[in-house]
């Protein structure tokens, strides 16, 4: 509609400026909308320090403009050239990344090879800098990565590079938004889809992930999604214990004393890892009072330990070890109950005791 083009003639110039920044700065990381009150006759696009900024005065007008044009193109009222569509899409998705329809149009452009997949990955990483919890961005990244990995001539080095990039990006996104479920879930998918299967590389990767999630948990004690990721990593590690013959299982352990000899067999190794986990959690619970997430993680650890002990063939494990662990659990929980000054921390501890009595013991029997 001709009216629309006259409403905001600067739109095309602003979109060109945005594209220019993407083209000239391959290490662009972040995008912000800068709140300003008035506006000068100056470009609203600001680029400094690998960050892109857009002044707030133009956001509404720009979005109305690109939205109108894209919808007209999509409904075939007025077709545009693919380069123009790509530019409009980038503008629209920077401002409002939650529009699945626009991400789908981008996918169509990638399919018809108008937009390179690597270029698109760089773009969506910048969008994540702006909205780190946007699930549409993660879904789109999964689609692009799947497509890139499925190509016939893909190098293993390239896949590794994508893997590292995804790990870095998910960590950034997780640090920008508390308890970022989408980011951690994406990380889990990356481990499943892009990681090397078996062999020394997988071991290295899992070790690195375990260590990283240990650091993360110590720094972000209330990040439920982070803890869930740690649980996933631990389960993957245990399944590798079963399949492989690790000579030195003590590599997996933290620097804490353990009741169980790790070298004995896979179940023992698992058990000792879990035991150490309990110790770490105890430390954290005492240091940072009032975090429910740590107590729930404790339940997971106890549950896993129970499974290991029950199904173990090794003589050293078994009911006696498990009972002693449960005993010390009760002691710990009661001590927290007594000593904690926070009311809800008492609540957590007493609920934990209840749980031990009513749920854990029953499943053991």
């Amino acid at each position: 509609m001709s009216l629309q083009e006259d409403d905001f003639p600067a739109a095309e110039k602003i979109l060109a400026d945005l594209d220019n920044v993407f083209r000239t700065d391959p290490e662009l990381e972040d995008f912000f909308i800068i709140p300003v009150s008035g506006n000068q006759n100056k470009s609203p696009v600001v680029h400094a320090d690998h960050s892109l900024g857009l002044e707030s005065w133009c956001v509404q007008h720009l979005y109305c403009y690109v939205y109108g044009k894209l919808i007209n193109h999509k409904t075939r009222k007025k077709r545009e050239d693919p380069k123009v569509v790509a530019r409009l899409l980038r503008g629209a998705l920077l401002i409002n990344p939650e529009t699945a329809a626009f991400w789908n149009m981008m996918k169509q452009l990638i399919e018809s090879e108008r937009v390179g997949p690597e270029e698109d990955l760089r773009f969506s990483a910048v969008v994540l800098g702006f909205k780190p919890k946007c699930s549409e961005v993660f879904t789109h990244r999964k689609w692009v990565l799947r497509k890139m990995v499925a190509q016939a001539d893909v190098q293993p080095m390239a896949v590794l590079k994508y893997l590292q990039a995804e790990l870095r990006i998910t960590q950034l996104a997780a640090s920008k938004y508390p308890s970022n479920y989408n980011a951690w879930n994406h990380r889990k998918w990356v481990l499943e889809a892009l990681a090397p299967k078996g062999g020394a590389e997988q071991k290295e990767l899992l070790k690195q992930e375990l260590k990283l999630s240990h650091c993360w948990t110590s720094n972000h004690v209330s990040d439920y999604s982070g803890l869930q990721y740690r649980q996933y990593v631990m389960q993957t590690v245990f399944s590798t214990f079963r399949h492989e013959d690790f000579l030195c299982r003590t590599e997996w352990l933290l620097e804490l004393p353990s009741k169980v000899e790790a070298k004995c067999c896979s179940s023992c190794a698992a058990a000792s890892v879990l035991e150490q986990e309990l110790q770490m959690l105890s430390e954290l619970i005492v240091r940072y009072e009032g975090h429910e997430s740590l107590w729930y993680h404790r339940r997971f650890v106890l549950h896993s330990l129970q499974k290991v002990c029950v199904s173990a063939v090794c003589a050293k494990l078994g009911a006696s070890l498990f009972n002693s662990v449960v005993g010390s659990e009760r002691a710990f929980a009661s001590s927290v109950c007594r000593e904690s000054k926070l009311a809800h921390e008492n609540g957590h501890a007493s609920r934990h005791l209840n749980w031990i009595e009513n749920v854990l013991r029953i499943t053991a029997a």
Partner: protein
Amino acid sequence: MVKPWWIPSLGRKKDHGFSAMKQNYIQLTRVFLDEEAMINKKLPKELILRIFSYLDVVSLCRCAQVSKLWNELALDGMNWQRIDLFDFQTDVEGIVVENIARRCGGFLKTLSLRGCQSVVDSSLRTFAQQCNNIEELNLNDCKKVTDSTCQSLSKYCPKLQRLNINSCSAISDQSLKDLSEGCHQLTHINISWCDHITESGVEALARGCRKIKVFIAKGCPNITDRAVMTLAHLCPNMEVINLHSCSSLTDDAVQQLAENCLNIRYLCLSGCPNLTDTALMTLAQHCQALSTLEVAGCSQFTDAGFQALARSCHLMEKMDLEECSLITDATIIHLAMNCARLEKLSLSHCELITDEGIRHLSTSQCAAENLTVLELDNCPFITDASLDHLISCYNLQRIELYDCQLITRAGIRRLRNHLPNIKVHAYFAPVTPPPASGATRQRYCRCCVIL
């Protein structure tokens, strides 16, 4: 007000049941048999054909579905002389092109497959075999087209006059050699962004197609001075030549071009940074017919070159001097004095321009009647004073002022007061219009009308 018969009158009872509906239906079908339809009674077939000849593809296909008579007339070959399939793009695959070729046969003169990325050589071969009278073919952005298509065109379409293979990146010199052998009537050729094309292809084309008037080759960095010189010698009728981003060109090429092609009216040398004032002076010497000159990015040009150009090319209408950052107000003064027909002038990024130059422009001969577009973006010394000078340019339609930091909203408002139809492009946010005052249109539903 006389109500058309098909809107039921309000007094009718609501539940007539099936028989009344059937009566309505019969009434409808009775009127619209071919021979009884008013349009077919009143207009002879030739006139209906003539009306159809103005329609586009979609409307023609819809008309073809109306009735048997219209089907025959709409699909008559006469209506399918010009076809543009841009709006269908990815939906157009080989089979569509082949069907069109068979349906239209020798009638088809103009076909545009711009944007139809799925079209392949084999379909175009069928097309070339069937439509031997094709005169204008647009294959812009048909990425799968290769040299084989041009070979087919050369073999089967001797009447081809205009060919556009913009962005068909698989095209190489072989295509141009084939075209030079088979399509001697070529007058308009566009090979932009076919970066495999080199001087040997261009030279072959020039040798075979002496009638070339329009040569557009944007973004072909392998086109060298020698190619342009051969083209200039062999095709002296050249009127339009576009060498945007053919970055290796030097003054020698321009000199040969100027000396041989005296009829040049449109010349684009944007993005050829090696050119100097010498090129402008040779153009001034020989090409007085020049009316459009685009030299964006030719940053070595100075006032001297433009002074020479302005003094002899009085027919100049459009000039793009973006990024010719050495020029000063002197250039504008020369243009104002000599080029009375100037309509579009772009001075983007010409950082030395001041209000004084604009003042001269606004009092020149071209200002009152002809000047329609003026681009002053990124000229930091331009202030509201320039806008006040431009009030006298009654036909000014668009002015670009991006990044001119000394321009204020007040200045723009004053300009708009004097020139109400002008489009001022700046970074100022548009003002949202106030909500419409006055009585809003009353809307009520039909039952309320009854009541």
